[in-house]
Every structure is written in structure tokens, then in C-alpha cells.
């Protein structure tokens, strides 16, 4: 268990793993048909690969990696619309760094920048607001991307812009709501999810009530989990215990950060600024009803799409890649024919390879070598020797 030694409390980790193995014996699942636990948050996916948590699980349990990375579910057509807006000479287009390399049909924002568009990477939407104040002759567009964790941040930024009567600032809204996506996944016949590990920081905003439909309508257990490996092991144990006790409820392992009611101020800000926009397209998942978010009428003047009317782009996912199957747990990243050849973190074909939180990028970073050396036993021995020498 070489990974366990890297945990903050290795002894506690060992105890948790032992208990997991004992309890898993009681599960109505087997190595052949394991209990499939979907972790919804990209941060969780990253931690699973980094710490090899999946390898510490008993054979009756398996992680499947859900769509919880906003960049990974960003449809190509939306990137094309961003590039179209960014091409306006008066526009300064601001984005978070992980969105610049996502390929659209017409290339990425990085490519658009090489072609002369003024695209800037910002750490916070407030940086974009500041650019608008400092450049009154330009129009600053912020690419607002993300789930409920990032949504209130955009909302407060727009409230500030409105107070200041800034007329040269707008957002391109690609916020998406998590709950309709979970509902959509659960409603699909080709996807089997037995339990959820729910994201800590989305829940910190939303609180726990929005998850109840998962227990009540779909009879699946759910545990809101922190990001440390120990949090996640404990959360998995809580899920296993629920199944063993034949109950299904929403439990909060991350109580130290997630209040039951969430962040009420954030919820108020979101209600003032955003409203549901009907269905939204997700990369790899298709259209999902009621998952789209747009600005309320009071904030319509801050809508970059209204201002610039980019052409609506609907770009089908490329049939050569299996992003959608990876996103729904039907395929492991390395089983995709493009993995590691036509699609690498340096030259990503699909968005799951772009973000470090994407399942494919995480697999590539932490597993790729293991898979390729497993095919070549002699190399594997050399590799192990090299590792020992390094230590």
C-alpha cells in the first residue's frame, strides 16, 4: 500500500480500508458485478487517481467518473461562439485558464488568440471587471463557466457591475446546474449508478436538500464528501454502510464545510441574477432538460450573447472518440481508441483530456505508464528498479 503512506494519517487510512474490505463482504455486489459509485466532482476524480484510491477498494466496489468538470462537458459549439465574440476588435475576452485549450470545431480560444483576438486569462471574474473599468473604450466579456460553486461568484460580479453602471462589461454564460444532470444520468437505461459521492463545494453553496430526489425518486444512497483521500474513504464506507443497512439517504461527511442549508447569501445572489434556461447541451451527454442557466431580465444587458448574437452552433461529438461513454462510466479512459495516441494532454482531442480534473487526463497522468508497461513485463521490472533507485 505505497499510496497510504502519503496520506495525512496513514494509520487511520489503513483502518478505514480494512473496515471497507470487511463491510464489502456483506454487500449484494461482487467482483463481477461491483457496486458502481459515481464521483461527480472532478476534484474527486483527480484525487482518486493521484492517491490510487480505486486500487485500495475491495473488488465489490468500483468508481465511475461522472461529468463534474465544467470544462469536460463544454460543447464544441459554445467554444466556437466564444471565438466568434472574441474576434470583435473592441472585445477583450476573459476566461479561466482551463478553458483556453478546449478545442471547438474552429479551434480553441488559444488558436483564436494566435489569430489576433484579445483573449486574457483571469483568476477571478473581478479581474475582468477591473479590466472593464480600466478600458472604457473596449468591451470586456467574461466567459462564465462552471457549476453552482462558481455561479454565485459571477452573480456577485454582475451585481457589482450593475451598481457601477458599467456598460462595457458582459458575460458569456455557460453556467450549468448539477442536479438536472444527475437526474438525467439516473434516467438513462444504459447507465448503472448504484451510489453517489457528491461534490463538497457545490454542496457548500446548495445545501443538502436538492439531493433528496436521488434518495426519494431513484432510491440511491448519496454522501457529500470532502476532497482529501481520508474524506473519500470515509464517504465510501458510509455508502457501503447504507447499502448494508438497506437504507438510502443523503449524508454529509463534509459537515465541517457544508452547512445543511448551504450558503444562503449565495443562493439569494444566484436567484437575483440567474434563471433556468430550459435544456442545455452537454458535451458527451447530449441535451439535458432544465440544466441551462441564463441571466434574468434585470441583468439581460450584461448578456454577451444578446449583444453579439453569435451564430448558434450545434456540433456533433466526433464519433471516433468515446468521451460520452467515459463520462457515463461505460468505458474506461484507456479503452478509447484515441487515448494516448490521437488524444493526449498536450494535444487533446476531447475535453476530458484538457482539464487536469478530466478522467482521461488524470488517467494519463497517473496510470498511462502503468498500463503500457503492464503490456511489457520486462520494461516493468526495469521501471520498478528505476523507482527504487530514485527513492
Amino acid at each position, binding site marked *: 500500500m505505497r499510496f497510504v503512506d*502519503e*496520506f*495525512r494519517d496513514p494509520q487511520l487510512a489503513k483502518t478505514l480500508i480494512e473496515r471497507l474490505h470487511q463491510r464489502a463482504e456483506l454487500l449484494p455486489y461482487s467482483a463481477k458485478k461491483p457496486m458502481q459509485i459515481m464521483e461527480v*466532482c*472532478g*476534484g474527486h476524480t483527480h*484525487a482518486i487517481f*493521484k492517491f490510487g484510491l480505486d486500487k485500495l477498494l475491495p473488488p465489490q466496489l468500483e468508481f465511475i467518473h461522472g461529468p463534474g*468538470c*465544467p*470544462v469536460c462537458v463544454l460543447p464544441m459549439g459554445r467554444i466556437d461562439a466564444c471565438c466568434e465574440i472574441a474576434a470583435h476588435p473592441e472585445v477583450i475576452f476573459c476566461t*479561466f*485558464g*482551463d*478553458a*483556453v*485549450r478546449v478545442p471547438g470545431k474552429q479551434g480553441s480560444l*488559444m488558436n483564436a488568440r494566435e489569430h489576433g483576438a484579445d483573449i*486574457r*486569462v*483571469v*483568476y*477571478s*471574474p*473581478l*479581474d475582468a471587471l*477591473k479590466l472593464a473599468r480600466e478600458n472604457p473604450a473596449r468591451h470586456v466579456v467574461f466567459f462564465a*463557466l*462552471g*457549476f453552482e*460553486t*462558481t455561479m*454565485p*461568484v459571477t452573480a*456577485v460580479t454582475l*451585481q*457589482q457591475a450593475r451598481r457601477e453602471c458599467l456598460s462595457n462589461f458582459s458575460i458569456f454564460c455557460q453556467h450549468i446546474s448539477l442536479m438536472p444532470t444527475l437526474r438525467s444520468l439516473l434516467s438513462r437505461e444504459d447507465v448503472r449508478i448504484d451510489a453517489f459521492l457528491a*461534490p*463538497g*463545494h*457545490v454542496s*457548500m*453553496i446548495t445545501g443538502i436538500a436538492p439531493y433528496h430526489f436521488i434518495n426519494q425518486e431513484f432510491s440511491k444512497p448519496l454522501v457529500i464528501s470532502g*476532497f*482529501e483521500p481520508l474524506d473519500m474513504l470515509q464517504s465510501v464506507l458510509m455508502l457501503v454502510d447504507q447499502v448494508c443497512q438497506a437504507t438510502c439517504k443523503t449524508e454529509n461527511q463534509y459537515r*465541517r*464545510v457544508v*452547512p445543511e442549508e448551504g*450558503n444562503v*447569501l*449565495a443562493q439569494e*445572489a444566484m436567484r437575483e441574477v440567474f434563471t433556468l434556461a430550459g435544456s442545455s447541451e452537454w458535451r458527451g451527454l447530449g441535451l439535458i432538460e432544465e440544466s441551462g442557466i441564463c441571466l434574468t431580465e434585470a441583468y439581460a444587458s450584461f448578456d454577451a450573447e444578446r449583444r453579439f448574437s453569435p451564430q448558434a452552433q450545434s456540433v456533433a461529438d466526433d464519433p471516433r472518440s468515446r468521451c460520452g461513454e467515459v463520462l457515463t462510466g461505460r468505458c474506461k479512459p484507456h479503452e478509447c481508441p484515441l487515448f494516448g495516441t490521437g488524444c493526449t494532454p498536450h494535444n487533446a482531442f476531447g475535453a476530458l483530456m484538457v*482539464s*487536469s*480534473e478530466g478522467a482521461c487526463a488524470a488517467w494519463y497522468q497517473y496510470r498511462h505508464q502503468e498500463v503500457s508497461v503492464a503490456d511489457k513485463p520486462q520494461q516493468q521490472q526495469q521501471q520498478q528498479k528505476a523507482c527504487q533507485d530514485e527513492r
Partner: protein
Amino acid sequence: MAELAGATTMCIGIPGQIVALHERQAGNAWADVCGLRREVNIALVCEGEPEALIGCWVLIHVGFALSRLDEQEALETLAALHAMEEVEADVALFLGAGEAR
């Protein structure tokens, strides 16, 4: 841009301690994050008088305090982030953003 490749939409936050209110920008405060002073927006954690936040630990995501933390929790989270090698990249960004302003 490579130095900013980690600036993300991801939902991980960093703990910081509010040390002072911003002199000119209402709704903003100064936070100590791993020994560095940074401007953060406090609109989403400020329920009463902003002064009451001084000394409080908060979880910071893309320049906003999103949640209050108790000190023990904040320190443990920082230790865990260090262990996960997330903190260096994020702290670098946090400061890098200051230069871009």
C-alpha cells in the same frame, strides 16, 4: 499563458484568514493566504458587520470567500492541500493575478 494553465473553474478552494477590510473597496477585504496578503470579496460570507469577519478563516475560490471555517479545520485543510500539491499552483495563481491587475 502556461503559467496560468492551472487557473480553473474547478471547485477546490483555499483557506485564508481575513486580516483587514479593504480601505477603498466596500465588500472586499485582505486575507492572509499562506503568508501572502490578497484581496478577496466577502459579499458571500458577510451577514452582519464586515468588521466581525476580521480574524475569521474563510474558504476562498476564484477571489471570493465562499464559506467560513474554524481555525483547526482551515489549518488541516491547508496541510492536506500541501500534501496534494495543489496549494503551490493555486497560491502562485492567486499572486500572479495580482500582477495582472
